[in-house]
């Protein structure tokens, strides 16, 4: 019951906040009031029963908090809130669809004046309805630090003059790209856990999926939103198989594919299959399509590598990045042999900024291992292990080097 109530409240949070901000302005104060109203509901509803309209109840409760706060501020500092004007405007507010409010809120939280960590924190609180304590726990920082980050983000929004409206059509695509990037970062934080021994902090990846589902309901026609959701579903499907019970990282070719979540795969595959033919292909859709090919393959060897290579070729053309080059090199090695893959890595290695990038070192070691050069591969894995800043990755890479060193000492065939 309590969990269901929490979920319902968090679904309603952005709608309530959206209405308040449009009525009263003052994003900062409205956001605090919304959180307080949610806390009030969490204690009051189980005791008094659910109100007929939970959304209206929350809007009223949050408005009261705002008015109380304005009164005490007035008494203290003789400053006035434009509550009267706000109340008058509320008569006309039903004209504004709730969808626009929710989207405007998301765009505001992912505003380009904010740093990445601030965008993430603010999105999780104002849109996701998580408390500051929950967000702080997910990122392993003191609650006071996270509170400071959130209040500073709100202050930055206020002083930038960013308004609670939809972005101009000319900016919209770039702003939406940023929103999708933030949701993807939240997902990855939960999936790859940049800090700590656990490979999965399920709460953040689940939260990112929940927000992506919500965004898809708001923008059902956007192909990249669908692509991002599909990518998350198809990646999360492998979560149970990705780490051994002792926390060890299990690479794709050694994963127990029976442990992959078939429901998530079916949902992700259906979503990407209906999206791709619409012809507005973007990087998230391509990554989702690649994940789908992996998820549908019964084994590593039975994977349709030519198709994966073709998808990486496309991705490399529309959204080139070092990571795409690395993954494409692996696909190329599976299709045309390790020498071709190693050659494709050559250009990256020539870039001094990337020469010590641990993923490049690990990928090259993997391709050297494929080509039978165990000594060079072991040295490469060891080098990569020293460069990574993730503990599970370091364990995995060190283990890989050990296994090959064993082979190294055995007599040549």
């Amino acid at each position, binding site marked *: 019951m309590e969990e269901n109530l929490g979920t319902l409240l968090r679904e309603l949070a952005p709608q309530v906040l959206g209405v308040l901000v449009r009525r009263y302005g003052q994003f900062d104060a409205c956001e605090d009031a919304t959180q307080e109203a949610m806390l009030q509901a969490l204690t009051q509803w189980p005791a008094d029963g659910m109100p007929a309209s939970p959304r209206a109840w929350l809007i009223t409760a949050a408005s009261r908090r705002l008015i109380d706060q304005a009164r005490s501020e007035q008494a203290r500092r003789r400053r006035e809130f434009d509550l009267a004007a706000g109340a008058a405007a509320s008569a006309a507010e039903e004209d504004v669809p709730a969808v626009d409010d929710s989207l405007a809120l998301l765009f505001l939280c992912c505003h380009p004046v904010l740093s990445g960590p601030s965008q993430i924190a603010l999105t999780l609180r104002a849109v996701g309805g998580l408390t500051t304590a929950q967000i702080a*726990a997910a990122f392993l*920082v003191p609650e006071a630090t996270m509170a*400071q*980050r959130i209040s500073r983000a709100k202050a930055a929004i206020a002083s930038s003059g960013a308004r609670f409206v939809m972005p101009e059509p000319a900016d919209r695509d770039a702003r939406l790209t940023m929103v999708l990037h933030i949701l993807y970062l939240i997902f990855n934080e939960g999936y790859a856990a940049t800090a*700590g*021994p656990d490979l999965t902090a399920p709460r953040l990846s689940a939260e990112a999926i929940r927000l992506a589902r919500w965004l898809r309901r708001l923008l059902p026609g956007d192909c990249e939103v669908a692509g991002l959701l599909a990518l998350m579903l198809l990646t999360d499907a492998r979560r149970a198989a990705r780490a051994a019970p002792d926390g060890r990282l299990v690479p794709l070719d050694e994963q127990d594919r029976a442990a992959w979540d078939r429901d998530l795969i079916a949902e992700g595959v259906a979503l990407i299959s209906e999206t791709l033919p619409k012809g507005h292909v973007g990087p998230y859709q391509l990554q989702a399509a690649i994940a789908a090919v992996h998820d549908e393959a019964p084994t590593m060897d039975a994977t349709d590598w030519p198709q994966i290579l073709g998808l990486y070729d496309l991705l490399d053309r529309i959204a080139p990045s070092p990571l795409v080059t690395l993954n494409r090199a692996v696909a190329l090695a599976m299709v045309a042999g390790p020498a071709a893959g190693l050659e494709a890595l050559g250009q990256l290695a020539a870039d001094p900024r990337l020469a010590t990038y641990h993923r490049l070192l690990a990928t090259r070691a993997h391709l050297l291992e494929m080509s039978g050069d165990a000594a060079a591969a072991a040295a490469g894995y060891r080098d990569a292990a020293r460069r990574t800043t993730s503990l599970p990755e370091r364990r995995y890479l060190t283990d890989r080097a050990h296994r090959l060193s064993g082979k190294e000492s055995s007599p040549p065939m």
Partner: protein
Amino acid sequence: MKYLLMIYGSQEKWESMPAEAWPDAIARHEAFNAKYRETGELLGAYGLADAVNAKLVRRADGLPAVTDGPYLETKEYLASFWLVDCENEERALQIAADMPFADVDPVEVWPILHESAAE
């Protein structure tokens, strides 16, 4: 990403600093700490006592065996450290370069590989 920022010092170095220079040095460090606490990036700042206060503890036959002094014999020892959580390495280096005495002594920056939750 979390990073550890460290500065090193020695008794000689502290002794060479005139007494009247200390209040200003401390105030500058406090201002630095306040600035990054306010950005939500500084998790904690700590200064260590002199190396003569350091003890070395081992366990022998299940009991603590305590001796004097730091483990590593070096001319300079860890003097202060800061734990920061920021967007990326570039930002960590930027914060390190903003340390009050980065123009005099280097600041060592280490990425944090692992941590346990406080709870």
